[in-house]
């Protein structure tokens, strides 16, 4: 077994908002780690809603207020909490929502972090700083959502053949598949995934209603801007961009930021 679970104060995005896990048994370390994460990108989560997951037992009221204060400073609002009966009592006392017991730890996630990592291209420094720029826009994007959330099982896929040209918009509750290029100045907006069987040079917004598991896939991924759920990433300068991999690339959210990985056949 591992000595100390890495990332005790796990912070992850879900389709319902942020999920922040605190290992109450190592409270100070947890809080320190959370503080570090928040400080690394001070405005990144502004406007988000969060559920707190307490593993082992509930913290004391003062400890809780400490966490809440920290989250407040970063513009994160606590909606509710998950954990055992002690957490339920705490929730009652603080008049917050008790959402049930803590979800099981995802072993694969933890293993991934420790050992074998999927090969990936991290965002360059430039893109990272741009992502921070967009932080304020995240809540704006969330607020833009005006249509009701449609579960993906009910959604349909828009299939488009041809080049999507500057100024054209494809909008779909569901997925979008383009067989052709998407030019700069064109926009694809989908509540689900976006697949471009060609070169994506325009703007794509997948998971437009908040689904952080949505992906953008293209044979060549060179967008002016990429959005998944409420995260935004600017396209990289072509000069620093490496040659696209044969077989295409996929953009998805990992650890609360958009990463681009080559498509490896046979791996989901």
């Amino acid at each position, binding site marked *: 077994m591992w000595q100390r679970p890495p990332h005790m104060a796990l912070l992850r995005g879900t389709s319902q908002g942020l999920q922040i896990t605190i290992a109450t048994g190592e409270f100070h370390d947890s809080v320190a780690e959370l503080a570090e994460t928040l400080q690394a990108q001070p405005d990144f989560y502004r406007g988000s809603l969060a559920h707190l997951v307490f593993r082992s037992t509930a913290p004391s009221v003062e400890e809780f207020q400490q966490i809440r204060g920290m989250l407040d400073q970063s513009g994160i609002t606590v909606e509710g909490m998950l954990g055992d009966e002690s957490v339920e009592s705490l929730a009652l006392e603080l008049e917050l929502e008790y959402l049930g017991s803590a979800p099981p730890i995802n072993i694969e996630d933890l293993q991934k972090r420790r050992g074998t990592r999927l090969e990936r291209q991290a965002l360059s420094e430039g893109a990272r700083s741009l992502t921070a720029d967009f932080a304020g826009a995240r809540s704006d994007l969330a607020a833009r959502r005006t249509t009701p959330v449609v579960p993906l099982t009910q959604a349909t896929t828009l299939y488009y053949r041809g080049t999507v040209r500057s100024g054209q918009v494809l909008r779909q509750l569901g997925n979008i598949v383009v067989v052709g290029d998407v030019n700069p100045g064109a*926009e694809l907006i989908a509540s689900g995934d976006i697949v471009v069987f060609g070169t994506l040079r325009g703007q794509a917004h997948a998971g437009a209603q908040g689904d952080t598991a949505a992906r953008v896939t293209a044979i060549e991924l060179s967008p002016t801007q990429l959005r998944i759920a409420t995260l935004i990433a600017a396209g990289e300068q072509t000069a620093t961009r490496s040659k696209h991999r044969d077989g295409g690339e996929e953009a998805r959210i990992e650890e609360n930021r958009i990463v681009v990985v080559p498509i490896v056949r046979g791996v989901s």
Partner: protein
Amino acid sequence: MSGRRIVVTSGKGGVGKTTTTANLGAALAKRGRKVALVDADIGLRNLDLVLGVEKRIVFDLVEVVEGRCQIRQALIRDKRIENLWILPAAQTRDKDSITEAQFLRLTTDLAEFHDFVIIDCPAGIEHGFRNAVAGSQEAIVVTTPEVSAIRDADRVIGKIHERKMPMRLVINRIRPDMVKSGEMMSVEDVCEILSAELLGIVPDDEEVIDTTNRGEPIVLDSTKRLAAIYDKMARRLEGEIVEFTRLEEPSLFNRIIAGWRG
């Protein structure tokens, strides 16, 4: 405070409105003024490209006018020049998307917290032009020393005079060698035809195309002669009397060629 609202227009397309807006705006910002540049060319936006911010657009002017976001959310800060902000146009709409009254309200709001609001006008004299002019108090007319451009500038100047707006002229893409050989109109010719007060004379420069493609306004490089010229324009705009740069004598190369061609 109420900043000055200036439209940069021309009538004819392609004479350098956007380049002028970007560089003059940048020059003013470099002098410490708070500048907001507004792209009024809805549907054919280019100001964002010229300033290299196209990848950072989250909201645009139409969304501001339609109340879907605040102005501050749509303004993009230039990362290289302090005090310079850009409000991009929408690409997926067209110029019939907003009214003159809405545009006026927009620029007036911007003028509350900027010293200069400079509006990049679309080509033509239709709705887009009317919107841009409705939102302004002053005009800068850009022309090249070429018959079609001058005729269109003249039409536009007429419309500006109808609105009693103060106006100044920028003559763009002058080629001194061609003026000397009589193949191009001189500054004096142009000013006489248009009878307008001169704000600036900008020589033709091949580097401008490349800087546009790269999204780096030429004034970023203070060693370039064009940077000095735009700086002078900024100073004139603020009321200083500044001598016009003497566009250089034809270079040795040009003189050889001129002699060759007889």
